[in-house]
């Protein structure tokens, strides 16, 4: 199951606004370097000297979720580099068609290509191999072994804003029962659930997270049933990892319970119960990466594969949503303290000790797991109520 499947749809108008704001910032500090790299020797650095930048998306640009966010990011790049043409292609399948779309973008002058779906990895690698003068950046994957000098992968630490939201949930709950509706037990989802519980437990040791999966990225009827089940159990804060989010939020709001959002700022769906959430904002990272490439410094840079960005580095494309009316200042202070702590050199939501449901220590005290370890988590932490479905 690919990452883009995790994240389609969800109501996203506000992210566009955030991205636009980011564009204004980026435009202020972006010097126009697109023509600066052709001095000296004849072998130009890959990605420089083009007239266009290409973006391919696996879904429609108005899917209220993952693809819409990536599209908003591409428009941020367009605003930051008005001299370069930004080419976009929607609904690009994750097969050889993607290769053809990228090749045609290259013929139109693109020297930088963003392949924004997890499943675009193989076509992207193929295009990078065939076009050494083009930089191909691929969203979501980690790659092993030798990486071509003109190929990069990148993603954000999605679990960091979820951890911060967990703090808000833990301080807000009155029943100490939090609910989490998720689609499938893949590691990115398990990361989020664990981070949510760890965040809640860091401020409220009695908080527990009850999990229900729906075995579907978007089945509103199942979501309604899952939410009702949690509410009838006394859960009073509900978060989720689903593609479409409206049903869960509205059901929660109608019951007078609290909502922690995912994918987008959906506070308008829950005017009284909205606490906070996490949403996408790709503009700053895309713009920084483009600047690095145009400066001729891509090869060997941190973006030259397996780049992960988080609170430590800045530019995290997954950010915490605005607070709702139910969150008090003391709680906001706790979030700020945690943010400072995670941003520190030895900080992480998964800083040890992390104990799983069975009481086994998975991350020893004093250690910080690396991204590969975090992205392959296969257990629930202590405090999560429920079991990972067995096959």
């Amino acid at each position: 199951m690919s990452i883009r499947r995790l994240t389609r749809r969800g109501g996203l108008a506000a992210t566009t606004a955030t991205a636009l704001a980011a564009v204004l910032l980026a435009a202020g500090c972006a010097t126009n370097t697109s023509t600066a790299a052709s001095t000296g020797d004849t072998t130009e650095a890959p990605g420089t000297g083009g007239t266009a930048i290409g973006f391919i998306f696996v879904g429609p640009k108005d899917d209220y979720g993952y693809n819409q966010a990536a599209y908003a990011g591409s428009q941020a790049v367009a605003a930051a580099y008005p001299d370069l043409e930004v080419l976009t292609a929607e609904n690009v399948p994750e097969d050889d068609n993607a290769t053809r779309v990228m090749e045609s973008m290259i013929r139109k002058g693109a020297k930088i290509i963003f392949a924004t779906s997890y499943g675009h990895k193989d076509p992207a690698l193929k295009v990078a191999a065939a076009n050494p003068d083009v930089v191909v950046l691929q969203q979501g994957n980690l790659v092993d072994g030798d990486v071509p000098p003109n190929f990069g992968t990148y993603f954000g630490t999605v679990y960091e804003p979820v951890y911060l939201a967990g703090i808000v949930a833990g301080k807000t709950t009155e029943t100490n029962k939090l609910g989490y509706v998720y689609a499938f037990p893949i590691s990115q989802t398990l990361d989020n659930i664990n981070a949510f519980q760890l965040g809640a437990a860091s401020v409220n040791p009695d908080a527990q997270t009850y999990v229900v999966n729906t075995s579907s990225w978007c089945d509103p009827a199942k979501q309604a049933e899952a939410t009702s089940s949690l509410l009838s159990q006394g859960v009073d804060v509900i978060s989720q990892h689903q593609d479409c989010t409206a049903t869960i939020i509205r059901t929660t709001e109608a019951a007078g319970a609290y909502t922690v959002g995912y994918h987008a700022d959906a506070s308008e769906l829950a005017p009284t119960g909205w606490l906070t959430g996490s949403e996408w904002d790709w503009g700053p990272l895309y713009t920084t990466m483009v600047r690095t490439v145009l400066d001729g410094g891509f090869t060997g840079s941190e973006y030259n594969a397996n780049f992960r960005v988080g609170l430590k580095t800045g530019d995290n494309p997954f950010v915490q949503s605005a607070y709702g009316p139910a969150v008090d200042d003391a709680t906001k202070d706790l979030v700020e303290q945690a943010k400072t702590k995670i941003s520190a050199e030895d900080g992480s939501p998964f800083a040890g000790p992390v104990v799983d449901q069975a009481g086994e220590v998975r991350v020893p005290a004093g250690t910080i797991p690396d991204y590969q370890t975090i992205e392959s988590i296969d257990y629930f932490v202590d405090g999560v109520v429920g079991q990972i479905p067995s096959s």
Partner: protein
Amino acid sequence: MIVDVLTGGVRGGTAILYAALGETIAERAGVINLGTEGSMLTGALAAYAVTAETGSPWAGVVAGAAAGGLLALVHAVMVLGRAANQLATGLVVLFLGLGLTSMFGAAYVGRAISPFQPYPIPLLADIPWLGPIFFQHDPLVYGSYLLAPAIWWLLYRSRPGLTIRGAGERGEVLTAYGHSPQLVRYLAVVTGGLLAGVGGAHLSTAYANAWFENMTAGRGFIAVALVIFAAWHPLRAVGGAYLFGAALALSPALQARGLGFNQFALDALPYLVTIAALVLLGRRRSNAAPRRAAPEGLSRVFELTPAK
């Protein structure tokens, strides 16, 4: 916990029940409509869109019924008017519904509506067990309580019902009596679509309170299977729909209590129940009373066009 599951069964089974009741009428008249899923989906979108525009979920239900009926009319025209293969036509109608709703529905993803609210029935809602299970729902659920016996009465106790069943069993006889079996089948198929549309409307404007592409997720097919499971009997369809609903509600109810079961087995449960029921029904049919048997017109389904 048991009350939760049964409550969820009624709540979640209602959409399927409407579609199954409609399909019962269509199949009783001799036409099977695999496009029921499409009618549900167009009904869900039309109801959501009209509710969003007018602010009235009742107007939405009317629109949902009309949209479901219109799509079923396409099926009827192709099958009855053009003698097309009814299984293939049903699938084509389904894909038509999928395509149309994904095209016109994009604008309504994320739109908010004022949906149907639960309306606890005074006194009845306070009865322990039965109250929460049956009497704390939205009006469309109560509507289905009345509709199922009404359709039973229509089919088995009224003259129009005899005509419908006649169209499904022996069209020639109807012709001899001066009726048009084709007209009866048209009406039956369109009625089936109308009710499937109401089922879809329940999903989007009462149950899930949202519109998303392909949100019926196979419930229309479950309804068609249920009609067979219920041996074309509207009251048995009620039990079947609630059984499916309860099977779907079981998984989240167990999980919300931290109980671990094999999730994939739970996901398969509603379908396993269908298969088990069909197997039991098949065994029974060999010595079944004629009432339990499939309409004669349907057993000619291998000719794939209804007998004249």
